[in-house]
């Protein structure tokens, strides 16, 4: 499997996850030790050189984010990890937490050292209870070995880390909703400004990054930013954990260098389409990501190239859909997901998802008309451009993009035909 890379995932399945000894044997905590001998500007510079971008989906340059966080002169500051991996088709953060938890812990510790933060929190989705236990165990071991807690490694730097559990809400992946939830409330997004970096957890400056982002930092500190960046493309440095799911033979999490194509990922790592079927559609970035057809399969994995083609890598989820699936049925499934997960606070998202689900239900029952395209267009525009938070702003992406690539399949439903027989085309049960 030459196209795989082994930086972040190097320890996967080769160490006992919560064994600190194992972790150290393979170079663990070299990054922190180096960082603790560097000036803050040097740490930031190294991360900037790595071209690391936020791995949660928004792809904001990590170096700049950390620089801004460092410049804020209000204390206490908090370091918070977004481990609310709720984007369907994504389980790479779970892999990191389950298979190499110290990497995340080390990354957060480096961030805390840089910012002068005394406390950090890992917000793990409630569904990942096992990962929470692994992290708690690892934190305990790190405290005992003086990699966390008071006077870390004999310095005057102290840092405590705690795991917070979510309780089942996709929207808590949105950073301000995550902070709300961390403070014990319903996880509905907060108004911005003020931004989390100024007024986040407990109203104080907060650095919030995804698991994969934090876990990449020890690697960067260890091998150097330039070396890390060299794995990827000019724009997107290093490697990415991707989750391959759906109708491929070999599903799972893979670490790949930026620059390889989707075709390589699906046909080499994924070993092609399962059950002898043909590829119909790909959805990239999770349920909030765009759907597209085979014609974009040679797009290289890179934030910039993807954007140019109207795509987003998002969380790195790649969902492969074969030709036994119906695009309308799929769009309906996605819309129902967002209808279930919308926090309900703002009109476009709450009401828009309801209306879209209703319209797609009409398509699936052969009851839709051309007029419904106008409604889809109006509603999705209002949602995309006018929703309160990222959830509503991306909830209609799958629908609008699949309409772009597979309009004829929607049309067929208007005329009462589902080409795959996935839709009931009648009033009865779906």
């Amino acid at each position: 499997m030459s196209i795989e890379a082994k930086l972040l995932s190097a320890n996967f399945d080769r160490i006992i996850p919560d064994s600190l000894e194992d972790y150290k044997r393979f170079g663990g905590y070299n990054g922190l030790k180096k960082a603790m001998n560097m000036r803050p500007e040097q740490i930031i510079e190294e991360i900037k050189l790595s071209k690391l971008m936020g791995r949660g989906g928004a792809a904001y340059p990590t170096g700049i984010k950390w620089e801004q966080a460092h410049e804020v002169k209000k204390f206490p500051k908090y370091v918070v990890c977004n481990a609310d991996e709720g984007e369907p088709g994504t389980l790479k953060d779970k892999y990191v937490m389950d298979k190499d938890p110290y990497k995340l812990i080390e990354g957060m510790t480096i961030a805390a050292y840089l910012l002068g933060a005394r406390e950090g929190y890992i917000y793990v989705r409630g569904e990942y209870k096992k990962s929470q236990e692994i992290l708690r165990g690892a934190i305990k071991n790190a405290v005992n070995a003086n990699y966390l807690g008071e006077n870390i490694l004999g310095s005057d730097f102290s840092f405590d880390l705690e795991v917070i559990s979510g309780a089942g809400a996709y929207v808590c992946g949105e950073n301000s909703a995550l902070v709300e939830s961390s403070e014990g409330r319903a996880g509905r997004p907060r108004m911005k400004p003020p931004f989390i970096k100024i007024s986040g957890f407990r109203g104080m400056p907060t650095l919030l990054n995804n698991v994969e982002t934090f876990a990449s930092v020890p690697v960067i500190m260890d091998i150097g930013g330039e070396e890390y960046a060299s794995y990827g493309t000019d724009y997107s440095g290093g490697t990415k954990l991707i989750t391959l799911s759906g109708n491929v033979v070999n599903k799972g999490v893979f670490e790949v260098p930026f620059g390889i194509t989707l075709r390589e990922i699906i046909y080499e790592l994924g070993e092609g389409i399962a059950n002898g079927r043909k590829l119909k559609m790909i959805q990239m970035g999770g349920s909030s990501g765009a759907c597209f057809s085979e014609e974009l399969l040679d797009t290289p994995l890179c934030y910039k190239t993807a954007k140019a083609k109207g795509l987003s890598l998002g969380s790195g989820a790649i969902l492969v859909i074969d030709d036994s699936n119906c695009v309308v049925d799929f769009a309906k499934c996605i819309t129902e997901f967002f209808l279930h997960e919308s926090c309900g606070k703002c009109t476009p998202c709450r009401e828009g998802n309801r209306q879209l689900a209703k319209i797609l239900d009409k398509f699936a029952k052969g009851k839709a008309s051309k007029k419904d395209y106008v409604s889809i267009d109006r509603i999705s525009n209002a949602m995309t451009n006018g929703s309160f938070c990222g959830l509503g702003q991306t909830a209609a992406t799958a629908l609008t993009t699949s309409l772009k690539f597979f309009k004829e399949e929607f049309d067929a439903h208007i005329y009462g035909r589902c080409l795959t027989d996935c839709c009931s085309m009648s009033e009865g049960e779906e």
Partner: protein
Amino acid sequence: MREITSQQKVREVVEKYGGVCEKLVQILLELQEISGQNFISKEVALTVAEEMGLPLSKVYDVITFYSMFSVEPKGRHIIEVCKSAPCHVNRPQSVVNMFESALGIRMGETTPDKTFTLQHSSCFGACDISPAIKIGDEIYGNLTEDKVLEIINSYREGYRNVNRS
């Protein structure tokens, strides 16, 4: 009924987390777990509100916001079938059918002996073995009819030695 969490127990859990509002979600998770029926009763919520000095409406808001909480009693074990896109394209309906016929209940229902509740769930990160189900903290994938029966029996009999993938 032994399932009903006593006021004293609620107080202990609240106390364990220092009674701070910030820990409300963690407190409710623990209380739901010890409820035995995977729910937060009105009485429990009221005690939590009183102990923490919160309006009951705020506690109710938190309970109803998160999908893992319930205000209605459920089965001792909740069988969750993922209905998100990555599982959807792998036909989870067949899995639903297998569980429905094995348990004799429909989706969303609880067995009369209150052992199992069958419900849908959003993605819980088992796309590598989809279509997947989750029971408590355990995840099972690549399901066949025999395996479904085996899983159900393992929970009935109180031991769990099923191959999970």
